[in-house]
């Protein structure tokens, strides 16, 4: 990562602080008899949650909320160019915050390097600031609100507290899903009675997410960290295992987070959008993007790809649109050339497959589909190497070493027994998500048995180190 960053002990979903916080907020939420009180409670709780990361940055978030709130009302009231101007003000405010905190150092660093390359050393100053947590998520969610108001798909929200909660709702504040106002705002305003079925489903889903994070993702992290930091001395096969494990690590980490977020909201009777739909079972790269981080890919589709013309303006324009979407998607993930190259390569492969972003599942025989699914997974895995590496050169280095079938140490940071155990839990995860995708358990006895066994499994086999969720940095 460029710029100044550090890890601060904070209220991640896998922390004790979150466990206690969630218990208090949920019980308190259901103790309140009016929706007004509940909204205030959730907003204050969300402020506390966000401030547990870096307290001062609530002021930045608050600033953009105020701007977007008034911009939304003005957009609704205005017509013609004035309407457009208010939208642009809102977009500039949000993108401006992103530009300063996330991209300024990256661009300045590259400018300084360029001057040095041409023999005229310059040193434009870099900002020594930490990146506000989840910045890319809540700015995109805020932008979706003003765009939808501009498109007249959503009335402007007059209640400032409700709008603030739409941006700050703690389960999805720092790593999504990036919600749409049409889905969340009505739910926040409606009083919903306590529903045991929702509580059961929400808790079961939270535990499943916690299982993916603590038992799988953080276990695989030991292998990934080892292979990506000892690339030169590690054998090709071990490097390949490291890359494959990273594919599952990032999936279990991010989808585990999403499960906890969706589950936590569900306990309070709020339904958030799905973020993952078994992406590694995709038979081509286009389908993969319809299943991976759905809330972001659909954001780019709805607010960038389609407004640019989508596939309606000819093949050349479609290719350009796809390329631009993936370039910006890469840049969204971080101010580093690794993310840009990762995004561009995905764009390139989507174009090469000749499908549009809205392409549906392909049909074919089981064998062909299986081969295609494996090939897509291998391709995605190789592209993740760019995502995980410190820089582009290291990524190429890693790929070159995998492809050279070189000898070296086969040690991958864990024992053989733990390697086999890792494969077992990955298989369990894939099979469960394929064949039992629902989280609702109707029988109370089964629910309690599931609850108890998951807590025991997560405790005994979870890896508890202070690992943040990977997507928090974005």
């Amino acid at each position, binding site marked *: 990562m460029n710029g100044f960053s550090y890890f601060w002990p904070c209220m991640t979903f896998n922390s*004790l*602080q979150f466990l206690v916080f969630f218990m208090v907020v949920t019980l308190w939420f259901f103790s309140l008899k009016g929706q007004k009180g509940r909204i205030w409670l959730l907003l204050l709780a969300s402020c506390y949650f966000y*401030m*547990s990361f870096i307290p001062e940055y609530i002021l930045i978030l608050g600033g953009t909320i105020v701007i977007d709130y008034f911009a939304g009302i003005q957009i609704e009231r205005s017509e013609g160019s004035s309407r457009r101007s208010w939208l642009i003000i809102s977009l500039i405010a949000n993108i401006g915050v992103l530009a300063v905190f996330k991209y300024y150092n990256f661009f300045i660093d590259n400018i300084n390097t360029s001057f040095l390359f041409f023999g005229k050393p310059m040193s434009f100053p870099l900002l020594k600031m930490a990146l506000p947590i989840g910045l890319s998520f809540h700015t995109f969610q805020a932008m979706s609100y003003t765009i939808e108001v501009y498109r007249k798909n959503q009335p402007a929200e007059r209640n400032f507290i409700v709008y603030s909660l739409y941006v700050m709702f703690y389960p999805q504040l720092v790593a999504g899903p990036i919600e749409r106002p049409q889905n969340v705002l009505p739910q926040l305003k409606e009083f919903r009675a306590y529903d045991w079925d929702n509580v059961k489903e929400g808790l079961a889903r939270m535990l499943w997410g916690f299982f993916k994070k603590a038992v799988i993702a953080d276990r695989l992290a030991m292998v990934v960290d080892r292979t990506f930091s000892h690339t030169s001395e590690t054998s090709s096969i071990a490097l390949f295992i490291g890359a494959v494990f990273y594919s599952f690590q990032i999936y279990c980490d991010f989808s585990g987070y999403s499960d906890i977020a969706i589950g936590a909201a569900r306990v309070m009777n709020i339904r958030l959008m799905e973020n993952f739909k078994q992406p590694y079972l995709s038979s081509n790269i286009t389908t993969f993007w319809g299943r991976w981080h759905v809330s972001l890919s659909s954001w780019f589709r709805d607010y960038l790809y389609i407004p640019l013309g989508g596939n309606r303006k000819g093949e050349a324009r479609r290719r350009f649109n796809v390329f631009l979407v993936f370039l910006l998607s890469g840049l969204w993930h971080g101010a580093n050339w690794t993310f840009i190259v990762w995004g561009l390569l995905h764009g390139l492969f989507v174009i090469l497959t000749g499908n549009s972003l809205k392409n549906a599942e392909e049909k074919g025989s089981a064998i062909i589909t299986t081969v295609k699914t494996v090939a897509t997974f291998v391709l995605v895995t190789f592209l993740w190497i760019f995502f995980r590496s410190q820089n582009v050169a290291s990524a190429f280095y890693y790929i070159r070493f995998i492809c050279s079938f070189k000898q070296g140490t086969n040690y991958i940071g864990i024992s053989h027994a733990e390697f086999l155990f890792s494969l077992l839990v990955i298989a369990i995860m894939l099979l469960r998500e394929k064949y039992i995708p629902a989280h609702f358990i109707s029988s109370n006895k089964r629910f309690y048995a599931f609850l108890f066994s998951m807590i025991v499994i997560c405790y005994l086999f979870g890896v*508890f180190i202070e690992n943040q969720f990977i997507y928090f940095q974005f």
Partner: protein
Amino acid sequence: MRHVIRYICILFGLALLWISTSRTAMQYLVTLRDVKNTWWGVDELDHGDLASLSYLYNIKQFAQPKWIEPEHAIFNGVKHTALYIHGDSYTRFIKDTEQFAGLSSYHFIDRNRGGTFHLDTTQKNILIIEISERYLRNYFSNLDIFSNFSEAGNDGPTSSSLLKEITPRLSYASFPGNIKLDSIFNVNINQNLQFNLFNYQFIMPMFGCKAAINYYLFHRASGDVVISADKKFLFLKETVSVDDKSSSYSPLPADEVSAIVERFNTIYDHYKQAGFNEAYLSIIPNSATINQPEGYNNLIPAIQNDPQLKIKVIDVYTPFTMSQELVYQTGDTHWNRKGLKIWLDIVNKKLTE
């Protein structure tokens, strides 16, 4: 009834969050629970810090043997040396000053707590700056190396700290109305919650069970502790992670060594001017440096052998690497009796020169 339970849970959760945030409340609780052999007592680090941290103290090879103090130093001359140690956990626990030779007085300042040295100008004043290898590189980017000192007979310190906070740490700002945010958001809240919820003697067997599963099934320790490649030692994770500056294996740029040497020279000049007859640097190697030397970044030799280094060195790295006996405890970050004895012998030789 449900409502009552609900409100009790809310109050319990709020109280737990408040107590775990409040430094005063936590200090009170830590003191209150510092009672052994009770169910609410704290799990002490009696078994060796790493063995306790990883709950592997029931595994035979990591169990802590009973500590036997090294014998007293033999010295028959006139005692006229005042020894000042500016150190950390390696020297903090030396209570029996008869282990040093020829001391008229002994003074210790814990670097993490700070303090004032009162120089006795009638004595030969010797200073030892003892520092663990794992703190060495981080130390010079964050903390103050100069302690206050005063001469006997003066009322106050004659000189105060010179190097402070070389790199400013990010601190919480004050909000309008003088609300201090660090009183609301305690960065140690998760450790405090763990202390309040789980750190009880009666829960320890559960932690021991998980640790045993990890050890026997996966051959590793949990959390911040790792098992050495030969399975004989526990190491603190940060001392073996390649991307941590505390590590024995993290890359060591030459300019960083030069910068550290330069700082030590400044420190040496400072203390010599302050009136110390001699100042020594004693870097205590990480256990991993000695017990798993393959891939070592050579931090200690690089500093100790730098021709620019002015401060004199109490070198334990060399005798530790040559020792045929173990010099570290197997389940602890610190040296064993043999390791301490080697250090004491070198120190006593310097004191009686």
